[in-house]
């Protein structure tokens, strides 16, 4: 029954116009970034390298597909959560708003299975977004700008990674980014279990992300004990994969914290949804 309903959920997502907003927005944004980089990328590069260029010269194709993919990933990881929440925040509450939840929950499928099938569908949708992002950023980026070594600006300096050393990092980075976005999916799903309209969970999810991001960015010692536990702090941990050497323990810690958040949010969603009286 779980898989049958998961199939149903995928049909619903694929038929809903809003599911394509994310993909269209992503495509447009990346197209704009690619165009901008093609037109004026060297300025962007010199912004990064300028402080070094007094004494050093950078030889080789810096503005390549690898760098473009990195720039795109870095720029969009802030905005994709909205696109994800747009679909995942609607999964339970949207059915309540439409009235179809009554129909769905009078069928011989347990509510836990309903939540899990929606979770799996949400994961598939999130994965498709990430893969699409990966395709556009990485494949199209390489196609337009060619390949080359990747130059990454971290807080403690520049890291230059060999072209051959980049692919596996991107693979893992997209996985970690997927996990980060799944945290958004499960958060919005949890909100969705509480609401009877579709806009509430989406707005709530974004509000939480903004709040946590601001707390994370505030340089106030009061929040120092809180920051390491905010999921938003760990959403950028894919970036650590582009350090040399890779700080595996940091990444592992982030992955665990993100996973824990996922489990927590799903538990909340299942608990609330099982207890919920369907009065809509």
């Amino acid at each position: 029954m779980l898989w049958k309903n998961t199939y149903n959920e995928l049909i619903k997502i694929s038929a809903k116009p809003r599911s394509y907003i994310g993909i269209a927005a992503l495509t447009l944004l990346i197209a704009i970034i690619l165009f901008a980089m093609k037109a004026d990328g060297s300025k962007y590069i010199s912004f990064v390298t300028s402080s070094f260029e007094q004494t050093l010269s950078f030889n080789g194709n810096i503005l390549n597909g690898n760098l473009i993919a990195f720039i795109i990933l870095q720029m969009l990881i802030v905005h994709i959560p909205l696109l994800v929440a747009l679909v995942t925040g609607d999964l339970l509450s949207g059915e309540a708003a439409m009235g179809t939840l009554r129909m769905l929950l009078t069928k011989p499928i347990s509510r836990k299975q309903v939540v899990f099938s929606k979770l799996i569908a949400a994961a598939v949708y999130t994965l498709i977004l990430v893969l699409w992002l990966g395709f556009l950023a990485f494949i199209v980026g390489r196609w337009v700008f060619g390949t080359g070594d990747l130059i990454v600006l971290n807080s403690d300096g520049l890291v230059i990674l060999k072209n051959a050393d980049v692919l596996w990092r991107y693979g893992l980075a997209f996985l970690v980014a997927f996990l980060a976005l799944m945290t958004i999916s499960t958060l919005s799903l949890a909100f969705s279990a509480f609401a009877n309209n579709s806009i509430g969970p989406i707005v709530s999810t974004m509000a939480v992300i903004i709040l946590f991001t601001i707390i994370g960015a505030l340089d106030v010692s009061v929040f120092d004990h809180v920051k390491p536990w905010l999921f938003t702090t760990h959403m950028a941990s894919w970036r650590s994969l582009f350090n040399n050497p890779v700080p595996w323990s940091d990444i592992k810690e982030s992955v665990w914290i993100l996973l824990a958040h996922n489990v927590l949010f799903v538990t909340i969603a299942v608990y609330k949804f099982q207890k919920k009286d369907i009065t809509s």
Partner: protein
Amino acid sequence: MEEAIIEIKGLQKSFGGFQAVKDVNFTVKKGDVFGFLGPNGAGKSTTMRCMLSLIMPNAGQIRLFGKDLINERNAILSRVGSIVEKPDFYKYLSALKNLELFARISGADVQRKTILKTLDFVGLAGRENDKVSGFSHGMRQRLGIAQTLMHQPELIVLDEPTTGLDPQGIIEVRDLILRLKNEQGKTVILSSHQLSEIELVANRMVIIHKGETLIEGSVSELMNTQQTLLHLEFLDAKSTEAAAFIAKLWPGQDIQITSPKTLQLQIEKSRIAILNQNLVGAGFEIVAIEPKRKLEDFFIQITKS
């Protein structure tokens, strides 16, 4: 002893401080078309939703097909088809896609041809590929009924199935319910706030009021033993004389003169024919004789008796 399909005992449910259902009890037997009657706000919808596990009751027992709803929910619901409130569908999907979606999780193996046959049965043949967003209310109602029937359930639960339908639609739904009972031997429970609707299709019924069961029994018995508000209209302005005649016939009878030509009185159904004979025999020219069984009046009587 006939098999009990639905047994509800001591059902209670409150939302916050408001107790929607205080003590509802009834039993639906196999083959019944069972009327679930009560005014708006009586707790019908809450009871129906409890029966379908949409709402978790605070106390009481719900057994369907002899099984406990909480423990064997999925086994029970695979044998039930239902419409709660109104049938809502995924508007962005076609009628067929919608039914396929629900068929997939109905617990039965429903073939596409069965779905198409059911669509034909409810009069939606040829519209299967149209998006539900373009359907009228009546069409959605029929699609809803198709949804309740396609997996061949033994029990059909219809919550206010004629709400919002035009007269033709109401008649169609009535016919459909009778066909389900007579041709397919299904057990049907339908809720309504209109006694007339229940009377026409149901063989047994329960009446609830303010969250409590008032009375349960066979429709014909309840209708006959219970009093009816009878409305009489005469050709001439003779209502005062007629009232005096009836008072002489049945001393103590409560009669209200509503206009020079009309009057009304509470009377048992079985006595309507006798009254008619006597009035005609006395030379009163009757234009209309109309039993008005308003549910509210019915409740008042029941609560009085």
